[in-house]
């Protein structure tokens, strides 16, 4: 069974045409990998479907716009995967 990171890296590689080896846990999806918000919709869609969750993009965007959170907090891939794991755990609870 693949880890959350491996699954997310594959999704990013498939949807954004980024070589898998360039996708590492410390990278920021936007600032390091150059993913834009439209690409991220595809990624969120694929993650939602694969894990049976709903990434709260609206809430995150609101927090970023109000400077209540930094982009790194949600979009460094290791942190994104932590959030996904939390959502999976909450769903299964």
């Amino acid at each position, binding site marked *: 069974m693949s880890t959350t990171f491996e699954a997310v890296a594959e999704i990013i590689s498939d949807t954004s045409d980024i070589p898998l080896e360039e996708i590492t846990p410390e990278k920021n999806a936007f600032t390091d990998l150059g993913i834009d918000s*439209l690409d991220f*919709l*595809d990624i*969120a*869609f694929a993650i*939602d*479907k694969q894990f049976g969750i*709903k*990434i*709260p*993009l*609206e*809430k995150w*965007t609101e927090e970023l716009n109000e400077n209540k959170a930094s982009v790194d907090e949600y979009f460094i891939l290791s942190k994104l995967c932590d959030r996904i794991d939390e959502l999976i755990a909450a769903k299964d609870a």
Partner: protein
Amino acid sequence: MLLEYFQMIDAVEALDLENGTILARAEVPLESPVFEGHFPGSPLVPGVLLIETMAQASGFMLLSRMKFEKMPFLANVNSAKLRTFVEPGQVLMVEAELEHDGSGFAATRARILRDGKKLCDSKLMFRIMPFPNSTLKDNMLERYSQITQNSAG
């Protein structure tokens, strides 16, 4: 259909908000300024307008599910297939279903049929955003009212 005003849907025939499905009717006009250019002597509904038609059917379903609190904007067209020509005077049925209700986005699958035969289909994704102004919201509400009143049922 009033092609030049991007009014693609004429009537909503069925709408299931819980399951996120819509069936709409779109009647291609016999005449339109669009046909003067597309194409001279061989009028055809442009493929982009067929995609727009599928997007509008999806959009009205999404708007209705969201009680017109937010607006779906077409953001991504995937695997669009335009299988045959669509000519003036044809009556089209447009089906769309919600594939995923995400946070700030939604994905649908849509298709257009004529006499039960699929003419085109696509996967569509929408950004769900606040209405930029009340003019657009009022216009959407008015259009929705018109096309639901036009329903055959």
